[in-house]
């Protein structure tokens, strides 16, 4: 992390637009059983942002290693690579005003091609791939673009109802310019029939919001004889301009 700004743009200091809590999943979603005991039941305290929410750390491109956004190779032995359908995921991180957001730290994690995570608490019978760790990260460029290379993860069963399966997905964590812009979400793949059967996807009330998490096959960006490409854009909260925001006299 460094204190330097990443671009010549003047830092923005406006409050973030209020979150549309009817668009995001509610906390209590009994079809996703774990949410039942982990959901706050009392009303949230709504606040217009103060400095504590508007500000946030900066992640410099210098923290990144060369293979950080290449999950095919970042855990593999020299000369080897992860098993599975090779894909590129690329996209634009925008805010609600449609502006590209530079310097966003994106961290991603996923199961291997068989649907198995490399984690001590993972119990699925599909085998580990010795050349696949399952984590990666990148930082958006000055216009808000990013890309990564990986293998397409497999769907997997999980203990919820007796026969629940997650659609193939990649988890994304996005760290924008302010701490209140923090977001974790998941990317799904166009055409996967499991999307519409998944209780976790189903926590999202709006079909359009689910489609907004579904990456689209991008044949133009596909590298012939090598890797298919999927485009996945991410939208972070927009923020107000501070031009006409007055402070009390004397402050």
């Amino acid at each position: 992390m460094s204190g330097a700004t990443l671009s010549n743009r003047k830092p923005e200091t406006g409050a973030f637009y209020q979150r549309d809590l009817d668009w995001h999943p509610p906390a209590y979603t009994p079809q996703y059983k774990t949410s039942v005991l982990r959901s706050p039941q009392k009303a949230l305290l709504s606040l217009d942002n103060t400095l504590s929410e508007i500000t946030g750390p900066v992640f410099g491109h210098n923290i990144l290693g060369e293979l950080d956004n290449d999950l095919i190779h970042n855990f593999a032995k020299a000369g080897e690579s992860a098993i599975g359908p090779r894909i590129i995921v690329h996209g634009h991180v925008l805010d609600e005003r449609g502006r590209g957001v530079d310097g966003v730290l994106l961290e991603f994690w996923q199961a291997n091609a068989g649907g198995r995570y490399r984690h001590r608490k993972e119990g699925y019978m599909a085998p580990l791939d010795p050349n696949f760790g399952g984590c990666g990260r990148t930082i958006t460029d000055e216009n808000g673009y990013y890309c990564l290379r990986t293998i397409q993860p497999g769907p997997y069963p999980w203990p919820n109802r007796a026969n629940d399966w997650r659609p193939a997905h990649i988890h994304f964590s996005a760290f924008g310019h302010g701490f209140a812009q923090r977001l974790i979400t998941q990317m799904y793949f166009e055409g996967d029939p499991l999307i519409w059967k998944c209780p976790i996807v189903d926590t999202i009330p709006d079909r359009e919001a689910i489609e907004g998490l579904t990456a689209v096959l991008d044949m133009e960006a596909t590298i012939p004889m090598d890797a298919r490409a999927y485009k996945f854009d991410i939208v972070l909260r927009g923020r107000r301009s501070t031009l006409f925001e007055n402070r009390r006299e004397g402050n």
Partner: protein
Amino acid sequence: MAQSLNRLKESASQTAGPYVHIGCTPNFAEITGVYSEDLGASMVNDKTKGERITISGHVIDGADTPLKDALVEIWQADASGLYNSPAEMRGSADPNFTGWGRCPTDMTTGEFRFETIKPGRVPFKDGRLMAPHITFWIVARGINLGLSTRMYFEDEEAANAEDPVLARIEHRVRVPTLLAKKDGNGYTFDIHLQGEKETVFFDI
């Protein structure tokens, strides 16, 4: 028809799931050799100004059980009340303090722990000073949208009494859910997701 605002909708949140550590703290998850260290693991160095404190606690569910798969992030001002952020316009924060920490809850005990410094006071929008506080963000399996809250210090009675955010809490019996308890050189701060002791969470 009027013009359109042409706004996009924020990407919908999804739970961080049980394996958030793979992506955010891979070394903790025993995936080594990819990143040299986990981001947010250390907030201070030898030169950081301010009073050193440890903050530890648990994230506790509605059956009084600590979460062993949560991830907690904190964000705070430096000892003089400045944020180490490009959006900080009042001056330059201590370059030896990041202000941001990330800690997974222990897989056996559920405890999180941050080595940090006590933050200074930061002004509210109208210029009044807020009491020293630390912003928390909690994600885990079963949490569909990351939870935001603030930690204040129980031994800052005077500052807490004039804090404009704490003043917004209608049910005064709930204010103590945001107060960390002094405990030797450190503070303990338990976060209750629901029930009688439910922490005040913020929509910020």
